[in-house]
Each structure stands twice: as C-alpha cells, then as structure tokens.
C-alpha cells in the first residue's frame, strides 16, 4: 500500500521534525534560564590605608552602603601607624556589620572581596587586609587587591560620569596629576616631597586647630575669615610641585607673625590655601594643555575643599573645560571606592590569590594594568 508507506514515512519525518523542535526549544529554554538567572555583580570593599576605616558595597555601579569611621587625634597631634592600626582593629568588624545591614545583603550575595593593597601606612593596611582575607575564606569568595589611588579615580569617574578627565588626586598622603593613556593611569606630575594634604594637616598642628572632622576642613573654615595675604614660597617645578619649603617657611615664622599681631591665624590659613591651590591649578592646567583634555576631575580628601574647587573651576571656565568634583562621602577615603575599582577589575577577570594579598606602603598608580579600559 504505497499510500500507507508514504503516510508512515511522513509520520516518521514529522516525529523527527517535532523532536528537533523540542530539543532546540529545550536548548533555548536553558539559555533563557541562564539569562534570567544572570546575576548583577556585587563587590564589598575594605579601606584603611590612613586614619579612616571604611567598608562599602557596590552593585553594578550602585553604592548600596558606605559606612566609615575616622580616627581623630587631639589638636597638635598627627596620627601614627601603631595607634591608627589599633583604631582600625577596634572598629573594622563593626563597620563591616553596618555595611551589610545598610545594604541589606547577605554574604552569599557578594561576588568578591576587594581591599586596599596600598599605598598607605603598613600597620593599618595589614589590619584591614587580614579581615578581608578571613571573610574571603569564610564566605568562599575570591579576593581582588586594589590600588588606593585607582579607587579614588574610579569612584570619581562613576559618580561624576566624567569621560576621560585629567585627574587631580590630592589627599593627606598623595598629590598626583594623572591622565589615562593606553591601559595605564599615567602620572603626569606629582609632589616631589609632601602631599598637599600633609602640608595643610601639619600647618593645622602648628596652629593647634582641631582635627575633628579633619584638620583640612578646619583650615578651610578659618581661611574664609582671612583678610591679609602673606606672600609664601611658590614651588612649581615643571609638571611637579613641592610643599616642604612652604611648610618650613611657615614653621619658622608662624609663631612670631601671630604674636606680633601682624597676621591672624585666619590670614595664615587663607595665604597657605591660596598659594598651594594656585600651584595645583597651574600644574593641572599644564597637564590639560599637554593632553588636549577638556575635563578635570578632582578626587582625594583635599578635593572636598570648596576654595580649591572654585579656583579650578575658574581655570576650567577660561579654557572652556568642564570641572567634575564629588562630595565628602566619596572624596574622603571610603570602602565603596575600593569596591568600585574592585568591581571593574573583577569584571575584567582579575583575581588575587591569597598568597599575593600582601600589602605594600608604596604602590605607584602607573604600576597597575588598567585592563578594564580601552
């Protein structure tokens, strides 16, 4: 029966076709299932290179929590490594609990642990690193070692949306002018001795200003009341800056100038700010001209200073460039910036094996391969 044979063949063919469709549907469903279960990457970052201990949680560019605790010393005193480490040891776990609670997440949801490898003070860095290593093992998560300076830069880029700015990174520990080029954050200019923040902090100690919330903040407030300008040594050397001369100059004369009533504390604060900030604006402008850049991003603790922002803003206006700044939750050292840099590194496949999670006091910004940018 030919009709019957044809019917049989066609039903076999139909069966085959249906099977193929079913199997491919199955495949598509599995793929779809994976897409549905696609996880938004969540990173926790721990920072403690100076006197702030911060833990932050970031998920796909959103900061879920960023608590921080600052070690404040009495007026006239700076913070030393041993005491700072004791402070961090005493507070890190509490800040870690806060970070998880504020973000309302469990350790299982976290994809990796980012921590500050350096640069900074050794004892405080180690105190935070041991906690990062421990939770990574307890929660069975990979670790990403982050450069502190790059944490500042990447948080600045995230928050402001700046495309490819000339970066002025200024803090108590660092003063660098940075521009991105071919997989590295190149240091175009930097301090040859002290960081500008260090100069300001040490001057605050001479004046016995309070260190709460930070010496730089109190210098800024005092400077607003300054009226008389004291000419101070201005030290720009090509692309670089130097602050030790201006600090020694003030250390030698401040007492006498104040006692004789020639200048008030406010006048001295005002004069110091105007001078050091002008130096920073000059060197930033030089880097911009060199790179043909139309964007400036200020990051680091000194970046909070509104006078610096104002002076930089004026220069940018004159050049038709755009200035990007962040507020003190992100300018000042924090955990979320480490998480953000960690997120970018993690997404580009970087993992730091446990044995390589040692810390280092010196860690050049331009030593890091920026694999997450073109």
């Amino acid at each position, binding site marked *: 029966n030919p009709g019957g044979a044809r019917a049989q063949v066609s039903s076999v063919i139909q069966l085959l076709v249906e099977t193929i469709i079913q199997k491919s549907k199955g495949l598509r469903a599995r793929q779809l299932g994976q897409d549905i279960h696609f996880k938004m990457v969540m990173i926790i970052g721990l920072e403690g290179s100076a006197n702030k201990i911060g833990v932050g949680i970031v998920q796909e560019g959103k900061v879920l929590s960023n608590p921080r605790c600052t070690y404040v010393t009495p007026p006239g005193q700076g913070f030393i490594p*041993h*005491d700072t*480490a*004791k402070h961090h*040891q005493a507070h*890190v*776990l509490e800040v*870690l*609990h806060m970070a998880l609670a504020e973000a309302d997440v469990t*350790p299982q949801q976290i994809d990796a642990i980012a921590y500050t490898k350096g640069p900074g003070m*050794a*004892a405080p860095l*180690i*105190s935070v*690193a*041991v*906690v990062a*290593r*421990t*939770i*990574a*093992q*307890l*929660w*069975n*998560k*990979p*670790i990403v070692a982050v450069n502190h300076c790059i944490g500042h830069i990447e948080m600045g880029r995230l928050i402001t949306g700046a495309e490819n700015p000339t970066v002025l990174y200024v803090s108590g520990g660092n003063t660098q002018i940075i521009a991105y080029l071919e997989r590295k954050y190149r240091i175009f200019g930097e301090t040859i001795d002290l960081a500008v923040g260090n100069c300001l902090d040490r001057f605050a100690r001479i004046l016995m200003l309070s260190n709460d919330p930070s010496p730089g903040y109190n210098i800024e407030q005092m400077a607003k009341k300054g009226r008389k300008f004291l000419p101070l040594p201005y030290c720009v050397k090509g692309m670089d800056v130097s602050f030790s001369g201006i600090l020694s100059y003030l250390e030698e004369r401040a007492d006498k100038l104040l006692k004789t009533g020639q200048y008030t504390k406010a006048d001295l604060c005002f004069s110091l700010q105007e001078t050091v900030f002008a130096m920073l604006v000059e060197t930033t402008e030089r880097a911009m001209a060199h790179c043909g850049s139309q964007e400036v991003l200020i990051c680091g603790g000194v970046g909070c200073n509104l006078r610096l922002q104002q002076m930089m803003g004026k220069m940018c206006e004159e050049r038709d460039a755009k200035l990007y700044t962040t507020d003190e939750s992100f300018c000042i050292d924090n955990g979320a910036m480490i998480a953000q840099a960690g997120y970018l590194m993690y997404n580009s496949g970087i993992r730091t*094996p*446990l*044995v390589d*999670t*040692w*810390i280092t006091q010196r860690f050049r910004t331009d030593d890091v391969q920026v694999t997450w940018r073109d």
Partner: protein
Amino acid sequence: MGDNSVDGAGNMESDEEISETEETLSTRQPAVATLEVPFNTSREAEVVRNSLQVDPEPKRSGSSKTFTLKENVLCVEIRSPDVRQLRTAVCSFMDLLHLVAKTVDQFGPPAQQSKKMCV
C-alpha cells in the same frame, strides 16, 4: 595617649643604648616565643593561619614567624634577635590574631567549599 605608656617606656630606654658590637649580635641565640591557640575546628585554624601568614615581618625587625597546624590548634613560633623586638613582634601578632579570631566568630563558621574560590 594613655594606652601607649608601656611601649613608650620600653622604647625610650633601649633606643638610646648602643650596647653590643655587630659580632656579638650575629652569634647570639634568638629569643623565641611559642604560641598554641585552639579553634573550634581544624578548618577554622587553617583559615586563621592563612590570613596571618601572608604578610612578612618588617625587615628591620629581624623577626620571623613560623606557623604549623596540629588539627584544630594553630601553633606559631616567633623568633627575634632580642627581647625588645620579640615583645614588639609578639604584641603586633597578638593584636592581629585577636582580630582574625573575632572575625571568624562574628562572620563564620567557614562555608562549605564545593569549589575553592579563595585560593
């Protein structure tokens, strides 16, 4: 600050002394401290050891640490050229050990590892 008094006093008297020649120092036996710290499980002891053994001692201290695990007990031997440096090494180590133990208490116990993510 108050809690610095012990360290401050110790440092004051020994930093000013230049008591030995290099010859005597190199031939002197090291001062050694041995610590044995039990944990709930051998895995916890291992976690603590892994966290603490990564950072080398500062070069100028001349101190060194050796870790061994005896089941759930973490054994640490700290060797230093003299008593002052031994005390410094032991004190900083105890601070970090205490912190790591607290971390395990508050954020542990160690999760099951089907695949080790933290290597």
